[in-house]
């Protein structure tokens, strides 16, 4: 009996290969988009983790030079002999056959938290590491490095990409930095009775652990983009799967009735159907994971370039995925299938044994559900609103986005139905009345595909609005912050003095850049001292301000804070900020400060000097009309080295290049989601085409030619897509608003202003209409070529 039942179940797919294809392809596409995006995120995260874990960057506080790049090695010894448990790190870049290798030297005996990969160096790890002068290197640069140095290089995939680690003595000689240290790591627990740091090492600055590796936090926004895309794509895919499963189960009602009449227990039957779906889900999931891998591999170079350019985060260019990633891809395929099939199973389980089978019943029943769906949708909208206004935290933000999207999807069929009813009522011609009625009648069958299209378009609008707004804002922000022609970082006060003497008369204006790390309003923060002038007055714009901001800052009577601090501590113009004991200053303005994880307060140069008399400016902005000439003059005169000068124009061009990369990734994902939605429409139309012959035959008999019918089919697809677009634009904008104003604030502490990009939406609309037309073309063509005999057969049983 079981064998017969399996055969019967399978025969359905054999007779409807298109349905099977829809199911498998939909599921595979959903899984591919989801797991591809996950792969990109996982790859980036593992790269950050490897860097942080190996060098203890995330875990340990560090001592870094107050100015310059170097700590004398004697300073390490004197700190140790004063009782401070510190471990030295020397770090630099080696050129290995054109590959940039970040070489890190550690002392395995004093490195807090263990000595990383040297534990793998055989029976006597320490002996091998020190005596054999081993270098451990990430596989992507190991070979090039081995050909460049005479020492033994061991490939170790656990290291951060582009990174090699070795003993500090070896690193110093390879980097030509004998007796030099880049930074010192501080052990978590320190012995009692040590002399205070500012007495024995006033030239070193304590950099707390979280602050030293905020790559994860900085890149979070980018990964959030990707994750949102992955999730939405998956939702779109699951809509397709839901449609395919629902249809297949409805069409098999007759078979279910027959099998049950033959004595197969319902429980047994449902079990078999579950096994059947599981097998399909596993196959489709497997295909999807492979596709996801290919997708990730194709996009990875752009993602890597983006992350490295934007945040200096090193990500390996080769996908290196854990088995758990493959498994999670299959799991999500299974879970998605289960979710999509739960309704169908529920209906089968409740179906009376002798219920009639009617394929159309499914779509008609869907029509009756519109009211109920719309109510559920409205409820979801209310929840979304509640989450936005009352909720707090990232999770509430995401839940709000989910409520918004699914609410819109549920309300959408009702909106379509109403719009078509209005159109029908306004029409006088019989043909068009029939057209509108026929379209309306098709909505239930198409509604899932249209919902998918709606979500895809809304996601496109939302995410591209967010990315474009970010780009626009960031460009403005760069203009605001990079106000000088050249930026020069000097090593010390002496070099700074030489520089100042040299540029006197050569530069239009010199802007010293003073900064000090501190805690403000209970948060880690940085105080900037600026020389108030046109560079700031003309370029900085405020989110909120109170009076003549720069005048008040220049006289030391007020302070400007960044948005992060304003939002976290709820401090706004009119409030006061305690800068130092007995030094409370009113806040005059709040500025946006994108990408900065910590709070910032901007004060006048004089006040800064009074608060931090020890700190001297070593970084300067030089305003000039001829940056290239000044740059060359500085280098030729031997004042500074080329690496100490940053050209504003070059920096900006570089940043913008990075954003173009981001767009490549976003655009690729946009096209893919639209393609998935187009595919959903195609499959729905093809499925409907076969069932609609009985409805089209009378129209044909009344004089509409097959060609005209085909043309009307195309027109219908375009009209439905256009209606979807009309709903998708406001939905997408609502999504963008939630991403920018709710999720970004929760995740990063800053709110991006939202800009609208009507041209982009028009292009997207044209794309969506084309996709719908392309999807409808084949069914329309088939209809136009339907042999008249098929249409005649409809009337065969009448009369």
């Amino acid at each position: 009996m079981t064998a017969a039942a399996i055969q019967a179940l399978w025969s359905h797919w054999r007779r409807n290969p298109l349905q099977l294809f829809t199911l498998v392809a939909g599921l595979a596409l959903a899984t591919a988009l989801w797991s591809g995006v996950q792969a990109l995120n996982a790859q980036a995260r593992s790269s950050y983790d490897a860097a942080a874990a190996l060098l203890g960057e995330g875990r340990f506080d560090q001592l870094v030079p107050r100015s310059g790049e170097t700590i004398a090695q004697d300073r390490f010894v004197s700190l140790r002999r004063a009782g401070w448990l510190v471990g030295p790190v020397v770090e630099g870049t080696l050129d290995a056959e054109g590959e940039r290798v970040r070489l890190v030297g550690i002392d395995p005996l004093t490195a807090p938290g263990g000595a990383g990969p040297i534990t793998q160096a055989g029976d006597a790890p320490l002996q091998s590491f020190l005596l054999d002068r081993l270098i451990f290197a990430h596989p992507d640069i190991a070979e090039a490095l081995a050909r460049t140095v005479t020492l033994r290089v061991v490939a170790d995939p656990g290291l951060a990409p582009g990174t090699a680690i070795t003993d500090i003595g070896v690193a110093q000689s390879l980097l030509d930095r004998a007796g030099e240290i880049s930074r010192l790591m501080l052990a978590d627990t320190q012995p009692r009775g040590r002399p205070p740091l500012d007495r024995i090492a006033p030239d070193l600055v304590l950099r707390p652990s979280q602050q030293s590796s905020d790559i994860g936090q900085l890149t979070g926004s980018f990964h959030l983009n990707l994750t949102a895309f992955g999730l939405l794509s998956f939702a779109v895919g699951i809509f397709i799967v839901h449609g395919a499963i629902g249809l297949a189960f409805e069409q098999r009602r007759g078979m279910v009735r027959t099998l049950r009449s033959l004595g197969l227990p319902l429980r047994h039957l449902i079990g078999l159907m579950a096994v059947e779906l599981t097998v399909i889900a596993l196959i489709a999931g497997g295909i999807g994971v492979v596709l996801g891998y290919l997708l990730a591999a194709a996009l990875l170079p752009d993602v890597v370039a983006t992350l490295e350019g934007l945040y200096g985060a090193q990500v390996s260019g080769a996908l290196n995925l854990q088995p758990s990633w493959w498994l999670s891809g299959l799991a999500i395929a299974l879970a998605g299938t289960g979710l999509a099939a739960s309704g169908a199973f529920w209906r089968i389980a409740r179906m009376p044994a002798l219920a009639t089978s009617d394929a159309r019943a499914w779509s008609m029943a869907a029509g009756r559900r519109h009211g109920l769906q719309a109510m559920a949708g409205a409820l979801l909208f209310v929840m979304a609103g509640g989450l936005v206004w009352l909720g707090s935290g990232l999770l509430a933000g995401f839940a709000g986005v989910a409520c918004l999207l699914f609410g819109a999807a549920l309300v959408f069929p009702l909106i379509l139905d109403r719009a078509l009813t209005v159109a029908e009522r306004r029409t006088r011609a019989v043909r068009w009345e029939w057209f509108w009625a026929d379209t309306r009648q098709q909505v239930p069958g198409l509604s899932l595909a249209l919902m998918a299209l709606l979500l895809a378009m809304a996601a496109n609008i939302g995410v591209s609005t967010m990315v474009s707004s970010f780009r626009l804002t960031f460009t403005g922000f760069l203009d605001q912050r990079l106000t000088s022609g050249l930026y020069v970082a000097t090593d010390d006060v002496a070099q700074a003095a030489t520089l100042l003497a040299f540029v006197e008369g050569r530069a239009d204006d010199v802007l010293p850049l003073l900064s000090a790390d501190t805690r403000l309003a209970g948060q880690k923060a940085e105080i900037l001292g600026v020389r108030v002038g046109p560079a700031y007055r003309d370029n900085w714009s405020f989110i909120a301000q109170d009076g003549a901001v720069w005048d008040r800052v220049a006289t030391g009577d007020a302070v400007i804070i960044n948005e992060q601090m304003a939002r976290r501590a709820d401090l706004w113009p009119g409030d006061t900020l305690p800068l130092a004991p007995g030094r409370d200053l009113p806040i005059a303005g709040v500025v946006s400060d994108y990408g900065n994880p910590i709070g910032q307060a901007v004060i006048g140069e004089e006040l800064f000097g009074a608060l931090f008399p020890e700190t001297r400016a070593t970084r300067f902005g030089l305003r000039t009309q001829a940056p290239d000439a000044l740059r060359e003059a500085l280098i030729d005169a031997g004042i500074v080295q080329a690496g100490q000068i940053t050209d504003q124009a070059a920096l900006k061009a570089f940043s913008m290049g990075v954003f173009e990369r981001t767009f490549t990734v976003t655009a690729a994902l946009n096209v893919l989601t639209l393609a998935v939605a187009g595919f959903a429409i195609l499959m729905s139309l093809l499925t409907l085409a076969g069932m609609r012959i009985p409805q089209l035959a009378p129209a044909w008999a009344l004089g509409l030619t097959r060609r005209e019918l085909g043309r009307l089919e195309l027109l219908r697809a375009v009209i439905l897509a256009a209606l979807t677009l009309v709903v998708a634009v406001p939905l997408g904008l609502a999504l963008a608003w939630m991403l920018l104003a709710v999720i970004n604030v929760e995740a990063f502490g800053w709110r991006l202003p939202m800009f609208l990009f009507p041209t982009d939406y028009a292009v997207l609309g044209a794309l969506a209409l084309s996709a719908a037309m392309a999807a409808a073309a084949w069914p329309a063509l088939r209809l136009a070529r339907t042999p008249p005999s098929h249409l005649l057969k409809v009337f065969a049983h009448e009369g």
Partner: protein
Amino acid sequence: MRGDRLAWLLALLLVLACPVQAPAQGFAGMGTEAQGFAVPQPDPEFVFPDDHGPHPDYRIEWWYLTANLTGPDGTAYGLQWTLFRSALAPGEGPGWDSPQIWFAHAAITTPQAHHSAERFARGGIGQAGVTAAPFAAWIDDWRMAGETLEDVTLTATGDDFAYDMRLQAEGPLVFHGDGGYSVKSAAGQASYYYSQPFFRISGQLTLPGGEVPVTGTAWLDREWSSQPLADNQTGWDWFSLTFEGGDKLMGFQLRQTDGTTFSSGTWIGPDGATRALGDGELSASPLEMTRVAGRDVPTRWRLQVPDRDVDVEVGAINPDAWMHTSVPYWEGPVVVSGSHAGRGYLEMTGYE
């Protein structure tokens, strides 16, 4: 004796960066040969103060100090300060190229608590080292130093303790084995081994409860060698005792896999005159076990040296004197009663 520490020391070095590796496997990387290191020879001629300094041509070496102390209220305390040198290769090199590795253990034992700490350092850069004249042995801020070894100050700090002591020698150096050439096994392995057991010590202990002024006696061991021990030795029990009459006893037994032991020792008179005790002249048997750090460790012993009419009980002041160092072991102060009364130090390794 503390030649046995040779094995332990090498194992310690090997497990430094490889915590899951069992100490016994550590021999694999090093072998039992001297591998280019100098080997101790009979009839040594020591030159002082030079020999108080390091001998980088030998594989391992230590400056090992233990002290029995008394507080103002009569409370007994124990103190340990040990600097180890371990060479990856013989000789010295400049800066980070030095093959010398240094590490150190420090501890304070009270009747209620045991505080310990350890430090590591590379040779060649000044973070740790020993100079003979003026005498200085240091690692980080831990330091034993003075004009001569006869008059030194001693400091160490840990997370929850610190001490600052002054030591003055009131007797001569004592040479173990044959004039300081101490044979460790029938196979001929040996070390250079001498002690200064006549230190008078006083100073301040800093404990979580506050500062405690203390006085007492201290014992310094100096030993260096290049050869590890045999594979069939599982651990040892080492005693350094000072009796009320002024006599002192250093004695140890090696526990072997077949259940037998190998014992050795030195009887030291109040004037520093010595008599070496051969295998079997000293016997030690556990009287009471204590569960310490997840294992059973004998913390009360019966010790007999029939030739000297010694039949005493040796009991730990704090049975929980466990050293939570990279390679853990038991080391703490003891009280002696029976035929002779006194106090001293006990070290036990290899209890799993």
